[in-house]
């Protein structure tokens, strides 16, 4: 074999230094090491009985290499000495603090009562008093090493059961293992506990200590503690036995008080103590009140499932009866989210679904004894639907064209037109961006929000199904600085936990991040569920530098490795979908692909419901499940059947967002007025009266822009008008000044900066000044009467005519015969007042 390419190349064109360099750089790996060849020799020898001796063919070459390097070898003893000196120096200079189980026990013994919360109660230990105990909702167990007995008391019982300890080895180790693992009644467990090994390491500011015990019966116990570096006291722990994982990450709490001072931790003093052989058996056979307690438990469980909200439980009752929706209905809401079933498709025509929604909500009102307010007037509904679907008020031409239209389907036609307009797509993009991108993050290094908004708007405008749009967003790849959708990733620095939290909130309607540091306090999500979900985002390429620094060249793509682990516990968690405990099947798909395949499937029980609820929440200012991203057993929907009806329509239209919007804005509750003569919170709560929503910064700018004709409208076709939302510097400046913290749209979030911007800002100044305002300039036309001019101002800003009271005031302010500067100033003042009115900045 020759290694000289020039000797045997026939074609000169095969010599390619550039390619050679390219490949040489890309494959800059060390040569095949001799140790590998030796390993191959050994491996094959074990199979064949003799070695092929492939490593020996290189021996001579290696020898000659070594000979050349003998001078380096001479330096080895010196280097070794230096190494030892440095190692000693490091050991002695880095402080002598070490962490060991014995020190932990010593530190814990100096404490009084040490407690930890369990699933339904708590456990405690007092090493100085040599007592360990556990209480749950129905019983109390105390193991007292001094009395060498275990006591059991079931609440409500007249007795305390006592069992003598089977062994005499209830030492501190055993007390603590029982404390961490529970299972107080089985005192014979963990007999002759022996410390087999221990290891500690520093993790950030904490110390992780791993302790292993062996027992006589062969059970191995692993205790993983997170210690406070100064006090040596455990802050959290995880315990695993060879039988099962008893993990918990609940924090430990310490108090100086003793058990003797804590009555709630002690056995009742006035009860009969009965000695039994085995508490576990005796407690089951005890005739006292067991059945009653079980019954009480059931009642309690049932109450806790329904939450404390009596209204919510009523909604379940309503939802579970045979409603009029016509789809098979199984009330999922009160069950654990992991057991929810997918919504059943509703293939009936859209108009039928609107009727079903109307029937269902009417039943709901009757059930709640609520009288809905009157339907909204034309102009109120017109302004609302423009603001909700197009993000702006209608222009004067659009208001007039709508009011002039006397066809029976004018509202339906308007909705269809708005849903297909570019304004709808760009408005929806801004709304969705607020869900997808966290606030307060400097995004300039990643291309800024405009590219993201543009991408979203383009996708919404395409009319593609929402499932495809979400697919594209979650599977985005490419250069960070060039790809709009990648802002979703770069805004949270590609962190799997933040991506998981946001994805779960926006697309599944769940606050899964509550299970990030510990099991979810209210819902049956475990820490493993959260990190299993986060693991889907673990295999994305990441930079070896600050993301902002390399964002111009950094490319996001799927890689085939990368894991997440539970913080502090070093447990690597495999990706897992939320509604199954089964691990993922082997697949050639990248993890993100496996996620979206599940997430946007019609079989996913969360996606369609969460989206339906999100759109409902956007239109009503309040979701059927509210808050909109907090589905769970403690936050039940107002009507799970109503939500399923809408979600099933969404699924059956292949996740068509326009159809979803259409269904809701054509429904009866959306078309109700926001005004009423009396205040009734129940009406607002149950969608029997429209909530008044505050406009977003984007909406305020666009409304001012439309109202004051900063952008000219098309006189020939009033419906061809669209606002310019991208590349508009003035708009971006205004948004920076006017933006308020995200919050409920039904609550006013603005403050002094927003009020001042509206009163004195350059935008308002220009919009109400003759020099810039197209509206005021157009009112100069001689064929207008002053009354008509005022009407135009009202239609442009509030989409309605002045009321009679307003007329009275306005006619005094701008007399019919006013002309010239007096008229100009008057109109300008009225316009300023209208733009600064509460009505203008609200969506009624």
């Amino acid at each position: 074999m020759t290694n000289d390419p020039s000797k045997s190349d026939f074609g000169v064109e095969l010599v390619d230094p550039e390619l050679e360099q390219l490949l040489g750089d890309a494959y800059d790996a060390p040569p095949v090491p001799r140790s590998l060849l030796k390993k191959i020799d050994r491996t094959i020898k074990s199979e064949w009985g003799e070695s092929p001796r492939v490593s020996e063919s290189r021996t001579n070459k290696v020898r000659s290499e070594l000979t050349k390097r003998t001078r380096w070898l001479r330096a080895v003893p010196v280097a070794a000495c230096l190494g030892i000196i440095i190692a000693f120096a490091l050991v002695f200079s880095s402080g002598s603090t070490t962490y060991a189980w014995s020190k932990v026990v010593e530190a814990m013994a100096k404490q009084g009562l040490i407690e930890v919360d369990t699933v339904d109660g708590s456990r405690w230990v007092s090493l100085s008093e040599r007592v360990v105990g556990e209480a749950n909702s129905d019983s109390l167990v105390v193991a007292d090493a001094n009395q060498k007995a275990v006591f059991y008391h079931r609440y409500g019982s007249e007795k305390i059961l006592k069992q003598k300890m089977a062994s005499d080895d209830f030492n501190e180790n055993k007390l603590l293992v029982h404390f961490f693992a529970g299972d107080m009644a089985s005192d014979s467990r963990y007999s002759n506990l022996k410390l087999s090994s221990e290891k500690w390491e520093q993790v950030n500011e904490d110390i992780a200590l791993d302790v292993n015990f062996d027992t006589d019966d062969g059970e191995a116990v692993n205790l993983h503690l997170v210690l406070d570096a100064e006090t040596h006291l455990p802050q959290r722990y995880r315990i695993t036995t060879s039988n099962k994982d008893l993990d918990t990450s609940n924090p430990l709490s310490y108090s100086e008080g003793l058990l003797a001072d804590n009555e709630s931790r002690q056995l009742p003093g006035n009860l009969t103590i009965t000695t039994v052989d085995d508490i576990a058996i005796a407690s089951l056979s005890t005739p006292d009140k067991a059945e009653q307690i079980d019954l009480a438990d059931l009642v309690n469980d049932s109450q806790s499932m329904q939450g404390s909200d009596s209204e919510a439980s009523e909604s379940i009752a309503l939802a579970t009866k045979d409603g009029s929706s016509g789809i098979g209905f199984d009330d999922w809401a009160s069950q654990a989210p992991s057991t929810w079933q997918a919504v059943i498709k509703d293939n009936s025509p859209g108009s039928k679904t609107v009727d079903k929604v109307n029937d269902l909500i009417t039943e709901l009102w009757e059930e709640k004894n609520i009288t809905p307010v009157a339907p909204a007037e034309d102009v109120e509904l017109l302004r609302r639907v423009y603001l909700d679907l197009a993000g702006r008020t209608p222009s004067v031409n659009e208001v007039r064209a709508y009011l002039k239209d006397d066809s029976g389907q004018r509202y339906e036609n308007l909705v269809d037109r708005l849903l297909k307009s570019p304004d709808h797509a760009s408005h929806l993009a801004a709304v969705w961006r607020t869900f997808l991108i966290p606030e307060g993050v400097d995004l300039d290094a990643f291309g800024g929000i405009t590219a993201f908004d543009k991408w979203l708007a383009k996708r919404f405008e395409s009319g593609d199904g929402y499932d495809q749009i979400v697919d594209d967003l979650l599977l985005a790849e490419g250069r960070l600085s060039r790809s709009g959708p990648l802002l979703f990733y770069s805004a949270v620095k590609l962190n799997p936990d933040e991506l998981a939290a946001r994805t779960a909130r926006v697309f599944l309607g769940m606050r899964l991040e509550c299970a990030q540091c510990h099991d979810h306090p209210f819902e049956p999500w475990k820490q493993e569920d959260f990190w299993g979900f986060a693991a889907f985002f673990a295999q994305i390429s990441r930079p070896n530098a600050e993301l902002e620094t390399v964002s111009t060249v950094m490319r996001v793509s799927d890689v085939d490795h990368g894991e997440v682990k539970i913080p502090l516990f070093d447990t690597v968690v495999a990706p897992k979908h939320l509604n199954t405990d089964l691990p993922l099947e082997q697949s050639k798909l990248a993890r993100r692909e496996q996620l979206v395949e599940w997430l946007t499937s019609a079989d996913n029980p969360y996606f369609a419901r969460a989206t339906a609820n999100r759109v409902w929440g956007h239109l009503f200012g309040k979701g059927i499940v509210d808050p909109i991203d907090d589905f769970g057993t403690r936050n039940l929907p107002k009507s799970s059947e109503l939500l399923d009806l809408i979600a099933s329509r969404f699924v059956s239209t292949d996740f068509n967002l326009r159809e979803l919007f259409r269904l809701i804005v054509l429904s009866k509750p959306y078309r109700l007025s926001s005004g009423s003569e009396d205040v009734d919170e129940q009406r607002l709560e149950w969608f029997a009266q429209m909530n008044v929503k505050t406009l977003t910064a984007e909406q305020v700018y666009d409304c001012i822009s439309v109202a004051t004709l900063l952008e000219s409208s098309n006189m020939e076709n009033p419906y061809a008008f669209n606002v310019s939302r991208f590349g508009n510097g003035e708009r971006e400046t205004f948004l920076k000044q006017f933006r308020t913290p995200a919050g409920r749209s039904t609550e006013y979030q603005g403050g002094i900066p927003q009020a001042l911007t509206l009163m004195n800002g350059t935008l308002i100044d220009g919009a109400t000044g003759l020099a810039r305002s197209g509206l005021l300039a157009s009112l100069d036309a001689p064929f207008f009467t002053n009354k008509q001019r005022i009407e135009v101002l009202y239609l442009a800003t509030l989409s309605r005519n002045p009321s009679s009271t307003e007329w009275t005031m306005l006619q005094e302010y701008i007399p019919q015969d006013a002309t010239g500067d007096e008229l100009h100033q008057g109109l300008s003042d009225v316009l300023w007042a209208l733009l600064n009115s509460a009505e203008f900045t609200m969506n009624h």
Partner: protein
Amino acid sequence: MNDTEFMNRLHQRDPVAVQYLTDTFVPSLWRYVYFRVNGDQHLAEDIVSESILAMVNYAEKNASIERPSAWLRTVASNKVNDHFRAAARVQHLIDDARETGKYVEEEDAVAKQILVEQRIDVRRAVDRLPEEHRLALEWKYIEKISVNEISIRLGVTEKAAESILFRARRELRSKLTSLDEDEEGGRPSLKQRESTTAQTSPASAAKKNNYSNS
């Protein structure tokens, strides 16, 4: 020695076959595994030797492997995946990744990131070549093997080997160009791709805090 003869000799436990294997296929396999495991030499050695053992065992039972190099690569790739999936073994890799993924100085960061991205691009493009083209390029331009030797290894004439190299270079350039274009447009959605074959991504190293690509 062509592939059939190699497999027959391996089946017959001929040491020459092992020598041929280590000369011909192991360097390429070594590089492939080395980059897949982010430069962890010990791990790469384990995986390569285990893959070769798998081939030796397979040859014992059934001597017909049409493309030994591709077969080895698939086995090694599966072993790398298995390795990363095995939680018990992942831990130390995560720790290693912390070391290998140290933040670089900001002023060097962009330049280094560009280099990393470019090299990943090249390896990705090479991985997507037909097996014969990939091997020919690696032999010729990385291992500096003569065309004559390449032609023997491929079991073709020298002219045919030159032709293979020519086409391999052309195809590689074309793939490198299309990678540049791809990044502008992103990838098609999953549902659009359902009918097409899923492509596997090459590895690149990274880590961050308590999650890591390792």
